[in-house]
């Protein structure tokens, strides 16, 4: 019987903790247990046999920390570990699991470990383990959802063995990096894990509380491997507070709740497992039901599609947006992040991400934007691209189960999109168009939907992961188009198929578009529409959504409606001029809103450049001088900078095109350094003073900086480093710049920098603070 047949036919028992046993046999504090596979194979085999005799059917190899970050002799250790486990299993009907634990590093964007490096690290171990004869891969003790994804992908790409995954949840039912069970289930099942569950950190009693979340949402067998409660020290020895009797009693409850693969983790012993086997072996075997929910997820939570209509924010998309296009060309990720954060505040549940522009590398931009968005926003994302390369790269690094926009009924589209959905997991928007175009009738569109779903099934993609978009077409060019789309939504809804629409297309070519859009949106929701891509800044659309949810019992106690209604109350803002505060006064006092109003007012009598030269720059200089003289403090300096930015934004549109600023400056936090607060302050001030800043972000390789400087004809670079350990990367960057762009000046700053250090690494200037950077830019660029 294969392990997959076994876990689908009866309760399957895993082994228990290794650390406590090995320590009692002489493993010293700080000694790596994996080395015992070579130095003490008899003891490792003895440990496995004790668990087999206790009734364990899955034996975990002693390879928890075996990866290239910790061991140079990886092949030797993993091969010996599998050999030891197989030797122990000789007389037993048992399976050997290659144990894969976390790398000990944090993946980007939170940490510095690149996703592909993590995949490679895990893949290396998996290949060795599979070659040595492991029966399955057990990825365990994962407390970061992205690392778990990297490990599963590595396993799937490196072998054909079944993959089991268990993660570490805390008492609030979350991973260390924030994911709840529903989000992890969506992600891991999407990636094709064969069994999923919980291990470590908690005792059986606490895990009993989490099992129902798995039973409710999972379709694959559920694994529960608890610790023996909490550890404490008794006479210098570590003991755990749940003894084998209590442990096995609670494990009975866990099996009755729906877990079918059970064992132990830290502190558990062969006795814990023996008693658990004894008490649970005759309990009913209950596999989880196959779920039909349509679910997508972020790195924290899942969004269910099919109950409350889901709003997908449409603003991260360059179509028809001049500023957005400029931001993409400038690689201004912060602009895009602000679009995302603002939509999040408006209450969207998903963010559409489209960064396609002919003159940029869409795949690279898509990856960068998704990483950046997932560093600060916890909403699930809709990956919106027609480029299959960009789609695959994005799906690969996406932390969660994404929504994909889109596949069509065309064979070419099906063949490029469905293999990706099958491999990486995701729900996909299916637009009802095929080689013959868009059908004129609702039934024609439904037929294409059926065809797409049938083809999806052939790829092993379930119907629940297909969300059909029956296409809203401009009613101005075909008066029946709204009726056809709404009828298609109604038919699809009656068939239990989920639907989505890009609502605002309906009003194309008509005046007062938001009004038409909002009414159409309401009608579509009434027909059963599940998702809509809309502009959440449109009050009409948000009114439609809030009113609909309130009127259909989908807004408990009207809480959402009342909050929204309150937000519509007009806010009184005093125009600056009424208070007698001039634009320069607003900037000096850091009055953001008033500065914008005052600048717009001044445009009536002065040209934009006159406003900049006579008002904004002198005001900034006043504040800057105060800062240099230590009479003004950083918060005040930044408040003034924000006010100046507001003024700039107000007059920006009036600046004639072709009139350039004072010059380009590239800024970056150097390779290896992930702190960028100081660099961001410098950026704001430099922009205030009219410089065009190309911000390359943090942890930037010297080559990337040199390449940008060359490609944009830049003559000043600002580099930041926080730690002594990353200053060498600064020196390396300066060396490269001196070679590739000798005309370019380099200013440096950061907590650990000193004048002397700057000289030592051949920097042209050391700035103590952001104002110093501005002064040096004035000197170099004017």
């Amino acid at each position: 019987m294969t392990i997959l047949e076994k876990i689908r036919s009866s309760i399957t028992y895993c082994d228990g903790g290794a650390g406590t046993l090995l320590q009692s046999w002489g493993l010293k504090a700080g000694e790596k247990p994996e080395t015992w596979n070579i130095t003490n194979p008899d003891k490792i085999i003895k440990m496995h046999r004790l668990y087999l005799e206790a009734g364990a059917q899955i034996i975990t190899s002693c390879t928890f920390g075996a990866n290239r970050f910790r061991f140079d002799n990886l092949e030797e250790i993993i091969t010996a570990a599998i050999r030891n486990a197989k030797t122990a299993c000789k007389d037993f009907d048992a399976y050997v699991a290659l144990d894969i634990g976390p790398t000990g590093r944090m993946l980007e964007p939170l940490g510095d470990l690149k996703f592909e490096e993590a995949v490679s690290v895990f893949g290396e171990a998996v290949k060795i383990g599979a070659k040595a004869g492991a029966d399955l891969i057990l990825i365990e003790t994962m407390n970061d959802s992205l690392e778990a994804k990297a490990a599963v992908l590595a396993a799937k790409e490196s072998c054909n063995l079944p993959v089991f995954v268990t993660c570490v949840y805390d008492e609030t039912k979350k991973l260390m990096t924030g994911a709840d069970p529903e989000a992890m289930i969506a992600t891991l099942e999407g990636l094709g894990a064969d069994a999923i569950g919980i291990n470590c950190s908690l005792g059986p009693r606490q895990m009993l509380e989490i099992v129902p979340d798995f039973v409710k949402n999972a379709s694959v067998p559920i694994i529960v491997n608890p610790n023996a409660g909490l550890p404490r020290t008794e006479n210098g020895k570590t003991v755990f507070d749940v003894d084998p009797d209590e442990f096995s009693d609670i494990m009975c409850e866990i099996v009755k709740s729906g877990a079918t693969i059970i064992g132990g983790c830290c502190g558990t012993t062969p006795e814990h497992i023996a008693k658990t086997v004894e008490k649970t072996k005759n309990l009913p075997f209950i596999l989880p039901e196959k779920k039909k929910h349509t679910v997508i997820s972020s790195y924290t939570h899942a969004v269910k599609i099919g109950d409350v209509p889901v709003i997908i924010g449409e603003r991260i998309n360059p179509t028809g947006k001049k500023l957005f296009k400029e931001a993409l060309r400038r690689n201004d990720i912060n602009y895009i992040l602000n679009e995302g954060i603002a939509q999040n505040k408006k209450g969207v549940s998903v963010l559409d991400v489209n960064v396609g522009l002919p003159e940029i590398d869409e795949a690279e931009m898509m990856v960068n934007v998704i990483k950046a968005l997932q560093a600060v926003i916890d909403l699930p994302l809709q990956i919106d691209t027609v480029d299959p390369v960009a789609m695959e790269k994005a799906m690969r690094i996406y932390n969660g189960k994404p929504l994909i926009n889109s596949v069509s009924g065309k064979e070419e589209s099906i063949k490029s999109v469905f293999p990706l959905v099958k491999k990486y997991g995701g729900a996909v928007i299916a637009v009802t168009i095929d080689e013959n175009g868009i059908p004129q009738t609702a039934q024609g569109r439904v037929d294409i939907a059926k065809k797409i779903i049938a083809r999806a099934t052939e790829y092993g993609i379930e119907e629940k992961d297909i969300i059909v978009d029956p296409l809203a077409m401009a009613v101005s060019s075909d008066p029946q188009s709204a009726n056809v789309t709404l009828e298609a939504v109604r038919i699809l809804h009656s068939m239990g198929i989920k639907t989505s629409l890009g609502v605002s297309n309906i009003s194309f070519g008509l005046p007062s578009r938001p009004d038409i859009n909002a009414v159409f949106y309401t009608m579509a929701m009434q027909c059963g529409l599940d998702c809509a891509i809309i502009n959440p800044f449109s009050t009409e659309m948000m009114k439609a959504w809030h009113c609909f949810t309130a009127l259909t019992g989908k807004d408990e106690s009207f809480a959402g409606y009342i909050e929204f209604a309150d937000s519509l109350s007009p806010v009184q803002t005093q125009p600056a001029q009424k208070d007698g505060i001039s634009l320069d006064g607003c900037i000096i006092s850091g009055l953001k809103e008033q500065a914008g109003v005052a600048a717009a007012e001044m445009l009536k009598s002065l040209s934009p450049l006159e406003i900049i030269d006579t008002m904004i720059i002198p005001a900034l200089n006043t504040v800057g001088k105060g800062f240099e003289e230590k009479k003004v403090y950083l918060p005040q300096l930044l408040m003034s900078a924000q006010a100046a930015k507001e003024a700039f934004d107000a007059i920006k549109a009036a600046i004639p095109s072709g009139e350039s600023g004072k010059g380009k400056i590239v800024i970056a936090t150097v390779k290896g350094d992930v702190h960028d607060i100081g660099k961001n302050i410098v950026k704001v001030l430099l922009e205030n003073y009219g410089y065009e800043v190309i911000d390359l972000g943090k942890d930037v390789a010297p080559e990337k900086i040199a390449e940008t400087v060359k490609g944009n004809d830049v003559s000043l670079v600002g580099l930041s480093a926080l730690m002594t350990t990353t200053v060498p990367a600064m020196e390396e960057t300066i060396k490269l710049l001196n070679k590739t762009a000798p005309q370019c000046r380099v200013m440096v700053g950061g907590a650990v920098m000193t004048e002397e250090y700057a000289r030592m690494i051949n920097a042209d200037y050391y700035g103590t603070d952001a104002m110093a950077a501005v002064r040096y830019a004035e000197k170099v660029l004017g």
Partner: protein
Amino acid sequence: MVEIIKADSSQIIIDKKEIAVYMGYYSVPCDCSTEGMIFCCESEFLKAANFVACCEKVPVKIIGDTVDLGFKAFSSKSLAKNLSGCDYAYVMAATTGIEAHRLIERNGVTSPLKGVITDCVGSAAIEAFCDKINLSFECPDFLRPRFSPGYGDLSLEYQRDIVEFLQTKKNIGMVLTEGLMMVPVKSVTAIIGIGKEKNKCTGHGCMTCKSDNCPYR
């Protein structure tokens, strides 16, 4: 054995003066509007933070400039001085958690001002949490000032040993980058000697460091 310590945000009392010092108000009080923003950022930070630490009591052996803490021998004159006369020390790691880390990043994107203030609130918050943990140790009056890698001549490289020894990723979700930066930001690793007499030193945390180019000094 590594002990895990958690605290609810409501138990963390952040010193407002310390926040102001981190923001550059060394000798003057900050103005009302800045105070207001500190208040907002502080409440936002405390809502996001998940205060968790892990520590273990270890034996101390000092030979010359080398301090052997059982799991690792540290070569550092400053640490040897700090732990002189101690038979035991606590090795600890503490963090304000990943959501607090994300909040600082997010606020930095929407407003550099809010980003700076939240960052400073975070610095003061992790110090407050460490103070609270130290008070929970046996004989808190006998504890030496916290000493972290990077202080004096104690190399930052030793952070790797502390993080490995305390298994910080597994226990509190804290890791080091290759450049030895802690993730989440607003995390601390430290060694705290247990003296045999009451500690007369009133300094704690970074204030005991001899670095003379730190902007907060």
